[in-house]
């Protein structure tokens, strides 16, 4: 019976990993800090108009409008920001070469530490997306500490993902352990790390990461969905380790109204059913 549960565990963990990675790819969103966060007053209406689309995750329209505004000379007051945004949008649209050219040019032309940090961050992200992990690490290490909070969280997530892609799990653990923030990016990184460690039979460490995500206190529907996924993966990992009671406690944390409710209920049912079978014999 548990052998079958073990099979299901692997399947569930595979599916949740795929889901998390799909989210990260789909969300390959640019992740620029908002104009308000950075205290930028809009001086070119058309730059603000591009941001209006960008903040709604309509990257293609934002990119088209930015290219048009740039050609018409309507974003001159935000030249560096517009270039960074353009590079980031190119990146989210899979135009890594164009994006890298823009960031490299910015690095050559500006000494502003904010702009340089963001350029290095995006160069690292472009390299990460192309699977050049060591070169991505190198770019990330050039970020000096002038990134806004939202990008900093994404940076740590990308660093952790890059380390994981190189099977350097211990370093990824250290990196994420040192992060106190529960920002969405880091939660995803912790989730991915937890799943990877469980699949490597490093159960205790993996479970610790998943448990942290599974205890997130949040009202954000996206993070609540991730929390459910983490509890589901953790519950099935406990089942695989034949820890029925712990599995039940964790699986009971999964929302009954979510898409994971059925799997969680199944997970809760297995150990109860097994106990009944054993008692009957």
């Amino acid at each position, binding site marked *: 019976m548990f052998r079958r549960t073990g099979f299901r565990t692997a399947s569930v963990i595979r599916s949740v990993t795929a889901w998390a990675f799909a989210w990260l790819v789909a969300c390959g969103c640019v992740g620029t800090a*908002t*104009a*308000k*966060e950075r205290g*930028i007053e*809009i001086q070119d*209406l058309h*730059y*603000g*108009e591009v*941001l*209006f*689309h*960008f*903040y*709604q995750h309509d990257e*293609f329209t934002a*990119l*088209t*409008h930015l*290219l*048009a505004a740039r*050609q*018409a000379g309507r974003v001159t007051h935000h030249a560096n920001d517009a270039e960074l945004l353009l590079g980031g949008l190119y990146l989210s*649209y*899979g*135009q*890594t*070469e*164009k994006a890298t050219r823009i960031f490299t040019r910015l690095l050559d032309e500006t000494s502003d530490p904010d702009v340089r940090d963001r350029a290095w961050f995006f160069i690292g992200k472009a390299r990460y997306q*192309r699977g050049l992990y060591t070169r991505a690490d190198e770019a990330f290490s050039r970020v000096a500490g002038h990134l806004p909070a939202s990008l900093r969280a994404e940076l740590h997530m990308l660093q952790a993902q890059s380390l994981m892609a190189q099977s350097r799990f211990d370093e990824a653990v250290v990196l994420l352990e040192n992060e106190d923030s529960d920002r969405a990016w880091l939660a995803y990184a912790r989730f991915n790390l937890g799943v990877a460690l469980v699949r490597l039979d490093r159960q205790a460490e993996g479970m610790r990461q998943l448990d942290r995500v599974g205890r997130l206190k949040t009202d954000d529907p996206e993070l609540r969905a991730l929390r459910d996924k983490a509890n589901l993966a953790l519950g099935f990992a406990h089942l695989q380790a034949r820890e029925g009671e712990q599995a039940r406690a964790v699986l009971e944390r999964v929302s009954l109204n979510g898409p994971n409710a059925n799997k969680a209920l199944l997970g809760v049912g297995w150990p109860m059913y097994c106990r009944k079978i054993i008692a009957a014999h």
Partner: protein
Amino acid sequence: MNHLSQRAVLTVLLVMLAQLPAWSADTRPASFDGEVQDLKGAVLDLNRELFMLEEELLYPANTQVAVFVSMDVGEFFALDSVQLKLDGKPVTNYLYTEREVAALQRGGVQQLFTGNLKTGEHELVAIFTGVGPHGRDYRRGATLTFDKQIGTKFVELKISDKLSKRQPEFYVREWE
């Protein structure tokens, strides 16, 4: 075609297929990635050209007028809709989604209306509706009389918070 020649053709096709490189996501040549990037780049360039052409044809620079909406903070006012009248005629009634309001609050600027106007004096009236302080329905107007010259005219409708009175404020600003 008899069976023998059919089989011969099939065999040749199979041999040709076997010669084709088996590309997976990981092993596809670098040029493939380059080709995809070139294709996407061409799509973007075309889209940009069409977008600019559309604007030039429909709203020539000499007569163009565009109205933008922006928001500063927005704690005292939850925007529902904006009605715009130009020289007494309603030109747009726009109902906002939560996502659009969030984009405005983060610093985005919406291009609410684009049209054409003759040179001379014109009156623009914007009526904002939404929920104001203490959850009360709120409806306010802002008016601007402006002189349209030859060349594009940009007008910004700005919603901001007046902290001293804990009330929203509505500005209309002309841009050159």
